[in-house]
């Protein structure tokens, strides 16, 4: 029998009920958080800055690995570079340290370009180890520079002119801005056609290349963006801590945390890193007395998650309850009649 003369009417939807409610809640949350310096404690603000730092790093790593298929275990290179850029701009060049934060991000992104030229020659697991080598190179170069404090590090003297409340509040607000900016950026990116391209690349490089997607350029863009994010966070973290050293700034622990957060939370989703960071912090608060055992547990949970529930906690929840707070897919809704 021939089909009906009209094709079924449909409309493309993006937002879901959950995302609409979530949007309102998020707006309220942002208002409360922005006002925190006026009624909250220093400790709370520091914790929130730390939370935002890890969340942003996790989101960047998620973008790299979960969307662009670039598994990097060397993002600490850009955290360290961002941190040290803050000190160079602030201490050595006399720039306002708060202004130096975004500049540090740019510096990291600038260095990511020649780095990518080298490191993109490797693929898959070899690319991953290559990024680690690069991070080590940056660490060793800086550790050998006496004018940057060598192996023992240095203090952020540029901050001395500011009152304590000013310093803490402005650092805090910068952190909030970074958090909001990153979430918005990642969400918008993945909604755009660049995001579609990335998802296509993740699913099949060969197929997407044959469809005209410039795979190299897409990957490069994500790599530089992730470097920018990591650089921003590096500057933020050491603005918060006021003291930097090469081993801390370029330590692979950063990558360990990023990976654990994303794996446990749920790779390849926007909500995943958020869930993962919350769990990470919860674990840290409850287990902070246990030092090494905490890391062992984290590692074990990540390994088990990867083996048993590779989509992570959010992946499991989303699939089970069909929830999306950050809808990036387009859903087709069919209409009857009309």
């Amino acid at each position, binding site marked *: 029998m021939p089909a009906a003369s009209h094709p079924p009417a449909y409309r493309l939807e993006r937002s879901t009920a959950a995302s609409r409610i979530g949007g309102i809640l998020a707006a309220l949350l942002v208002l409360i958080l922005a006002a925190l310096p006026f009624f909250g404690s220093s400790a709370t603000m520091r914790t929130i800055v730390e939370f935002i730092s890890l969340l942003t790093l996790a989101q960047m790593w998620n973008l790299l690995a979960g969307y662009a298929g670039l598994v990097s275990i060397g993002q600490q290179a850009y955290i360290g570079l961002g941190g040290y850029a803050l000190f160079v701009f602030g201490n050595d060049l006399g720039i306002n340290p708060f202004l130096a934060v975004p500049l540090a991000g740019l510096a990291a992104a600038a260095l990511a370009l020649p780095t990518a030229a080298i490191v993109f020659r490797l693929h898959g697991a070899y690319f991953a180890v290559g990024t*680690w080598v690069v991070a080590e190179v940056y660490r*060793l170069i800086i550790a050998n520079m006496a004018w940057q404090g060598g192996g023992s590090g240095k203090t952020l003297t540029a901050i001395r002119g500011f009152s304590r409340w000013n310093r803490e509040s402005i650092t805090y607000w910068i952190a909030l801005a970074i958090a909001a900016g990153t979430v918005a950026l990642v969400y918008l990116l993945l909604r755009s056609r660049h995001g579609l391209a990335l998802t296509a690349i993740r699913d099949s490089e060969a197929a997407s290349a044959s469809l005209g997607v410039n795979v190299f350029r897409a990957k490069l863009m994500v790599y530089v963006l992730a470097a920018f994010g990591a650089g921003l966070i590096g500057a933020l973290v050491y603005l918060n801590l006021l003291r930097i050293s090469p081993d801390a700034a370029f330590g692979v622990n950063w990558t360990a945390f990023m990976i654990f957060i994303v794996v446990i939370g749920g790779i390849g989703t926007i909500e995943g890193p958020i869930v993962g960071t919350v769990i990470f912090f919860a674990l840290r608060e409850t287990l902070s007395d246990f030092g090494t055992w905490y890391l062992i547990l984290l590692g074990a949970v990540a390994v088990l998650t990867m*083996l048993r529930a590779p989509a992570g906690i959010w992946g499991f929840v989303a699939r089970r309850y069909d929830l999306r707070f950050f809808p990036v897919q387009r859903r087709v809704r069919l209409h009857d009649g009309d």
Partner: protein
Amino acid sequence: MYGWIDTILQGLLLGGLYALFAAGLSLSFGVMRLVNIAHGDFIVLAAFVALVIVQASGVNPLLAMLAVVPVMALVGYLLQRGILNFTLGKDILPPLLVTFGLSIIIQNLLLVGFSADTRKLSAGPVETASIKLGGGLAIGWYPLIVFLAAIAVIAALQLLFARTMLGRAFRATSDDQEAAQLMGIDNRRIYGLAMALAMAIVAVAGVFLAIRTTFTPTIGPDRLLFAFEAVIIGGLGSLWGTLAGGMLLGVAQTIGFKLDPGYGLLAGHLVFLCVLVFRPTGLFARTLD
């Protein structure tokens, strides 16, 4: 002048140790396309196993190696069949992330068990004995032994792959694991045996490392990087290439170290990056992977 020749000789012999680090990594990648991020940590684990055996029995660590090898081989077999076999597939993420997690777990378990104190195993006078080459040059017996061991291991591996049924099974499984099953080859067992063999070599490398330098639970990742660099510099698919890669890396490090102690490791990494930029397939590549 002799100082430089001496430095280069030391670097060349150091390449033997690096080739031993790399051989296991190369093997597991060749057979199963698996890069074990915890590879360096297993080398350190082997060193601590040797430590335990030496402390308990008082034997020379070189002799203890005879016990460390089967222990690590068993660890490797169980690791592969119990965990890593389940990560193999088209996605590169699971094996990378699981082995990364294992790396963190091993390092921290070792820290809990042995603390961060530096350790070293002593093999006796052979560590400092040297052979006079004339003209003021000398090479140490110990580095020479390690280098010769590396050659022996690589030669044995080549023989295994080229002449034995197991080696043929390794190659066949690597080429086409489904067709290999049609031949009666059990992939899971083959992968387990490959990892057992890789860990056996790791055991040898770990004991040699423990005698040569001081070690702590956290030096694993650097060993992974050296192993990796030796493989890439030498070129994928060639074990002798890996030896050459290790030697080049060793020389770069010893020369760098001689110029300034802070530059030793950096020089090695920079040479690696140079090879990556100017000859990405490595010096002696055989397979294009």
